[in-house]
């Protein structure tokens, strides 16, 4: 069954969607959307390093993503706002990656594949990496879930409850590095944060608890993956962008459902 490239593509996409769902919720709640983008762009440096030195891609990308998280934490302070530090580091990493790759003959086209991903070319080995990475992300977030929720709602209250918000932030950094490393082959560096943000945002109008939002985001992500792949199969669309388009359509549907729900509540007397 795994011999069929469409099956492998679907399984890869589903694994990515499952990892992106809970992490994407935190990215949305904590307003880290730009952080996800920046990490993904910086990951290209990891790709370049992996191509240049013929080391495995997954650890190289994770290393660069974590190094960027450490750099952002270190730079953010009195002189630089967090998004300035992010902007400097992500573009510096992206440009350095491009320059580094130019020294390696014959990898220019490879790099394009990492910018836009190629889910239809996913191998069995990739599949194993993606599911291991996704499993690690889900396990990590499930383990830290309550602490992360409280640290997101109020760092002060988290500290008072014996939680260290900085350590919890690192749990998110690690999860983000894992997702980027797992997803860069599938949807590519440019679209990976779309898979984090859009399903979570699409789930928001439909739910009342954080847990429900993570589950709904997972469902929406999976539906988007299958829808996008169907589009790629039937209409010969580029698979990665088609997946992002599909989750965007689901996002618009979510907005619509939310608006209808609000209207209904208003007519029912305005009580929540």
């Amino acid at each position, binding site marked *: 069954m795994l011999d069929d490239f469409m099956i492998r593509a679907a399984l890869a996409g589903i694994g990515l969607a499952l990892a992106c769902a809970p992490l994407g919720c935190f990215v949305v709640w904590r307003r880290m959307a730009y952080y996800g983008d920046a990490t993904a762009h910086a990951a290209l440096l990891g790709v370049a390093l992996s191509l240049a030195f013929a080391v495995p891609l997954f650890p190289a990308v994770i290393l660069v993503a974590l190094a960027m998280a450490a750099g952002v934490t270190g730079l953010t302070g009195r002189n630089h706002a967090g998004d300035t530090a992010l902007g400097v580091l992500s573009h510096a990493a992206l440009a350095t990656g491009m320059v580094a790759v130019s020294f390696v003959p014959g990898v220019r086209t490879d790099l394009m594949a990492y910018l836009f991903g190629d889910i239809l070319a996913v191998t069995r080995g990739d599949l194993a990496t993606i599911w291991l990475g996704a499993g690690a992300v889900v396990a990590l977030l499930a383990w830290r879930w309550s*602490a992360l*929720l409280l640290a*997101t709602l109020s760092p002060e209250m988290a*500290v008072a409850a014996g939680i260290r918000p900085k350590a919890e932030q690192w749990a998110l950094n690690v999860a983000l590095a894992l997702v980027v490393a797992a997803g860069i082959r599938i949807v590519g560096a440019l679209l990976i944060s779309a898979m984090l943000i859009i399903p979570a945002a699409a789930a928001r109008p439909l739910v009342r*608890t*954080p847990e429900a939002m993570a589950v709904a985001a997972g469902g929406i992500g999976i539906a988007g993956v299958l829808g996008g792949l169907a589009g790629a199969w039937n209409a010969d669309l580029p698979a990665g962008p088609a997946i992002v388009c599909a989750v965007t359509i689901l996002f618009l549907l979510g907005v619509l459902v939310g608006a209808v729900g609000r209207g209904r509540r208003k007519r029912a007397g305005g009580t929540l």
Partner: protein
Amino acid sequence: MRDLPGRILSGGPGAALIGLDRVSVALDGHPILDSIDMQVRRGEIVTIVGPNGSGKSTLIRTIIGLLPATSGTIRRAAGLTIGYVPQRLAIDPSMPVTVGRFMNLPRRRPAAAVAAALAEAGLPGVERRQIAGLSGGQLQRVLLARALLDKPDLLILDEATAGLDQPGVAAFYARIEQVRARHGCAVLMVSHDLQIVMRASDHVICLNGHVCCEGTPEKVSLSPAYHSLFGMAGAETLALYRHHHTHSHDEDGGGESGRESGRADRAGCGHDHGPHGPAEPARARDHA
């Protein structure tokens, strides 16, 4: 009162729950707090007042452990449970959280305990409401209820009434007094609602980077250090404070009422307006 020998704080009524010994705090190299000595005893309501930038919140954050003290020591009674009510909860509308879920963070509680804490905070039956949909006063009561879940020995409130109108503030402090009366917990709060706070406290610490003066509310409101810090507002507090001892009123103070009348009057009052004090309206208007 001020001397805190270097031994572990012990239990018993009137014992210190928290003791600060020459605690100094600097942020980014700038000294914020200088050599603070203070303590909170079991069952006592201690209020920290001070102008903006005087280090009130820094002091609270240091006591909670959010900031490290640059020097000095902070002693806690063995097994001390702290309930913390933050200044505000900047909840992003993108995060769906019901009151019930919030009360179960970071660990699960029995539903009955959650219901009881919410009822005690004056907001029963809101478990299914969204946090983001609560008014400021309702949110403060939810935060208080959450702090009460742990049956704290010490309740710490960091400008918990910021954003409430004056009747709301008065009602909130009356509720704090009720909680103290029921649980016997100590309360340490930071506030700039001078008039109301001064009356609700057993001990007032006037802070401006260092402890300017401290003592009973009356002693502090008479102290020159307090008046040089607060100027007109301080003088007003003094006037109100004296005034308060002759009778209570509920008009010009925005419905505030003192300790004597407030407690009995407010029991079971579930809404945000101040209590209707026992003072005769005509008499209150005379002073308006």
